[in-house]
């Protein structure tokens, strides 16, 4: 079965213009849509009507609907941690499957309503979403998505998102906060923890380097 990716689906991945599977290193500096940083306690400009729906509706602008059999499958797959790619009969290369699932989890986090975790919690901010998408692409370019380590992508209650791996050389959490800043928590095999201070976020490149060290 040919892999038909509707142009609209690709173009709506986050706020950046994304390229279909072949990624060019020269494209690392992806064009960004300039947006104000979202206040985590309120997110003006977001479509709040989505928060009153029981589940996200099908839409030509929702990425990956061409993969899922139906709306309920899409939501259930994400909530219950199933690989979205398994809903299609296409034989995805592992790295592409990981990327699809990571991007789908980012999309899911963006749709989370206020109060999803507890009172006052918010879904993914615009800035965190675009930063997270860029980070996924950078990991793909660096070959990190092809590593044999299970990637978990988990929304934080404060408008950010967190990538987690357990690798050959320990464990790592890479958090992108609502302002698009990076923090990491590394657990080494000796049980020691190394945590980025909240007052001193790190660049994405440093986070990538740490991920590479952990995954081996």
């Amino acid at each position, binding site marked *: 079965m040919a892999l038909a990716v509707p142009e609209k689906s690709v173009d709506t991945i986050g706020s950046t213009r994304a390229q279909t599977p072949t990624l060019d290193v020269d494209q690392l500096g992806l064009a960004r849509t300039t947006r104000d940083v979202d206040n*985590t306690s309120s997110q003006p400009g977001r479509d709040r009507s989505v928060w009153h729906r029981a589940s996200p509706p099908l839409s030509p602008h929702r990425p990956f609907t061409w993969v899922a059999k139906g709306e309920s499958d899409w939501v259930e797959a994400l*909530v*219950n*941690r199933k690989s979205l790619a398994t809903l299609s009969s296409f034989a995805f290369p592992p790295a592409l499957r990981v990327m699809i699932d990571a991007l789908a989890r980012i999309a*899911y*986090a963006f749709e*989370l309503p206020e*109060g*999803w*975790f*507890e*009172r*006052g*919690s918010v879904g993914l901010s615009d800035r965190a979403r675009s930063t997270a998408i860029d980070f996924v692409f950078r990991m793909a370019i660096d070959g990190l998505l092809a590593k044999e380590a*299970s990637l*978990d992508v*988990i*929304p*934080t*209650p*404060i408008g950010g998102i*967190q990538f*987690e791996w*357990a690798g050959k050389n320990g464990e790592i*959490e890479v*958090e992108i906060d609502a302002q698009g800043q990076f*923090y990491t*928590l590394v*657990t080494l095999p000796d049980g020691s*923890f190394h*945590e980025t201070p909240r007052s001193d976020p790190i660049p994405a490149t440093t986070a990538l380097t740490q991920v590479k060290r952990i995954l081996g």
Partner: protein
Amino acid sequence: MGEILDEDWLYRRLHAACIKNDGTISSIAFMTNNFPDEQASVDLAKLTTPVESVNRDGKGHRKLGQLQAGGPRALGLDVVHDPLEYNDAHSLILGADSKAMCRKLARLVQVVPGIESRT
């Protein structure tokens, strides 16, 4: 306040998104809007039931995690019974002030199988 023994079980409501591929719990489970949660709410299992606990906040997509009180205490945290008007089982894990501590707490938690909140 009731005494909580080290071997007493505690329930922590978990959003399904906090459960990782391998069934373990993310450190996010012990974050709050003010990150991290220095007063993590739990239910004392002997004063409630799994179904009651998982449905207590009336929200969907909730699973239930459990851990023994001795676990957080071994990490240097306090576990105290803090009954509320509407929840006699309410208790608190006090003192988780870093992401690393959230991670350590998350490692202590097991997901209670077959328990999910009503949507």
